[in-house]
């Protein structure tokens, strides 16, 4: 039974880490810290909001419209698409027609400078932007009216190079969307706040990134990250390396995942897992350790169900449900309390997903397959490439069972 005690010990270590994550989120979202945040002296600077669009996200109309409703003196919104036939074009067009009082530009340009499709989409928008301050914001993000003011105020400090925000998954109506939101509202928000508070490591999530053009240019601009999968993380890291502060704003933005399928959930988190494995290396192991539900259930698989092994799993799962429920309440997530019962199931799925990046180094992103290299550098994965045999095996199995 030594193995049982080893896994029980790992579970305790994981739970301790989870408690630190909860403390970090609690601290980050406490009303005290919000009240004591910085204020902007002088007039607010003009901001260019860059919105790369590709396909229809859940609630796309409302997401885009929330940026038109900003209570902010002067800003422009640039919707950037690769193709006029993209279904998002029609939505962008409607938003522009509805908000004629706003400075909205729609850019359609097929930029192929790099391998990261989001960066390719951003480059034309960046070139067209007029203002010194740029905000990169994903299309599945919805914000309140005070969002821009709340994040721009951090820029009053010239030492600040980048402001990002914590994200909250909202709107889940399908199993995939609920899993996604549970994961964003526990693991993702916990990890981002933990790294920011205790390790002082910038962990920028590209859903919301505010920076100055001069700072971005100083780290090489978008061209420097055009072939990276984790362009957001690397921009944050390079800002810090350059001596600029990377601030995690206490403003929580909504990521709307309403009708996501389970496949979307699996694809996204396997992709994110692969890039964390490529960037973090051995540190990626900590994700498995902090997946307490998965670690506590390993003895059940090894020894079979017994009072001890099942008790450990149930006890850990209960703690995880309560912890996730607390985090959800803390960040005002809209997940029904009953759905938190799914949290351990989601963690089990995530536990198995953890191993995929160790076995595969290719990702399919927006219809293209890439090989991920060191620091998430992408290279094209062709049918004749070095790793293509694995791709062909998977394709063969799929065809067999289709």
């Amino acid at each position, binding site marked *: 039974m030594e193995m049982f005690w080893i896994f029980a010990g790992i579970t305790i270590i994981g739970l301790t880490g989870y408690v630190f994550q909860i403390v970090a989120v609690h601290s980050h979202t406490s009303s005290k810290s919000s009240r004591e945040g910085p204020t902007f002296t002088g007039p607010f600077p003009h901001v260019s909001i860059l919105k790369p669009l590709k396909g*229809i996200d859940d609630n*796309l109309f409302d997401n885009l419209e929330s940026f038109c409703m900003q209570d902010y003196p002067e800003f422009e919104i640039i919707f950037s698409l690769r193709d006029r036939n993209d279904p*998002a074009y*029609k*939505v962008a067009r409607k938003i522009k*027609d509805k908000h004629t009082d706003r400075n909205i530009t729609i850019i359609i340009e097929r930029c192929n400078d790099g391998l990261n499709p989001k960066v390719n989409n951003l480059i034309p928008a960046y070139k067209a932007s007029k203002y010194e301050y740029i905000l990169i914001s994903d299309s599945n993000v919805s914000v309140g009216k005070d969002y821009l003011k709340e994040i721009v105020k951090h820029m009053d400090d010239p030492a600040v190079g980048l402001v990002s925000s914590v994200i909250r998954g909202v709107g889940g109506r399908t199993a995939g969307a609920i899993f996604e939101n549970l994961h964003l509202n526990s693991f993702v928000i916990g990890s981002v706040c933990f790294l920011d508070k205790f390790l002082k490591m910038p962990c920028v999530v590209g859903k919301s990134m505010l920076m100055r053009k001069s700072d971005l240019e100083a780290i090489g601009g978008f061209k420097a990250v055009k072939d990276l999968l984790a362009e957001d993380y690397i921009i944050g890291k390079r800002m810090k390396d350059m001596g600029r502060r990377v601030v995690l704003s206490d403003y929580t933005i909504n990521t709307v995942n309403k009708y996501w399928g389970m496949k979307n959930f699996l694809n996204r988190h396997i992709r994110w897992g692969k890039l964390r494995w490529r960037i973090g290396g051995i540190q990626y192991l900590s994700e498995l350790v902090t997946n307490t539900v998965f670690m506590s259930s390993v003895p059940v698989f090894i020894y079979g169900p017994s009072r001890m092994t099942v008790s450990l799993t149930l006890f850990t799962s209960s703690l995880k449900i309560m912890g996730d429920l607390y985090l959800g309440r803390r960040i005002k997530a809209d997940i029904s309390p009953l759905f938190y019962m799914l949290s351990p199931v989601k963690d089990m799925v995530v536990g198995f997903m953890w191993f995929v990046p160790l076995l595969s180094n290719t990702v399919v992103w927006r219809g293209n397959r890439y090989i991920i290299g060191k620091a998430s550098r992408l290279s094209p994965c062709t049918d004749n490439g070095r790793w293509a045999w694995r791709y062909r095996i998977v394709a063969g199995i799929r065809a067999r069972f289709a």
Partner: protein
Amino acid sequence: MLLCDFHIHTRYSDGSVDLERTVDLFGQAGFDVIAITDHVVNGDTTIGRLTHKLKFSVREDNFDTYMTNIRKEAGRAWNKYGLLVIPGVEISKNYLSADKSAHFLLLDIKEFVPACWSYEKIFLEAKKQNALVIACHPHYMSDLSRNALFLWNNRERYAKYIDAWEIANRDDVFNVISLKKYPYIANSDFHKVRHIYSWKTLLNCEKDVDSVKQCIRHNKGVAITLFRS
């Protein structure tokens, strides 16, 4: 071009999404025109009676509520999304044999039309109400249980009453409509959220009910597109 879907079900019949959310789903995705067309099932067969019992059909007693709620949602959709919502029903004559079954849409309907009436009577009533008649999934489909072939098998007799035929329904395409040179549109037959990604109609006309109806009737400036994310 207006992006349109004229065949949408809600929880008023066998759809899985309620009316308000359905309207929001299409509005959020940038659609210009949609028609809500819940089933009106014939109650003169065992299948029909069961459907009525399970409330998978709009009935005479809830038709006014159905129409009132569609009109209310139409107002909201127009103000928020610039989305035109047309009220309609799908007359569903269901029998055990696909050859005897028929489904057709009545778009811009005003009064309740029972599905157990004869075909001629329903079509004449539709004309009286100035509603469009659209033959749904008229030919063989990939899902055999959804086949409703009566109108196609009796096209010589009924084609004169039908304003347009579905040339595509969700994932199925019916080349026979093209070969016969019948007026056409394409719809999703929306029941579940994922059905939004399916065949759609593009219309080159003004965004109002009369122009849309005229465009479909004349079948000029009509195109179909496969809507994918």
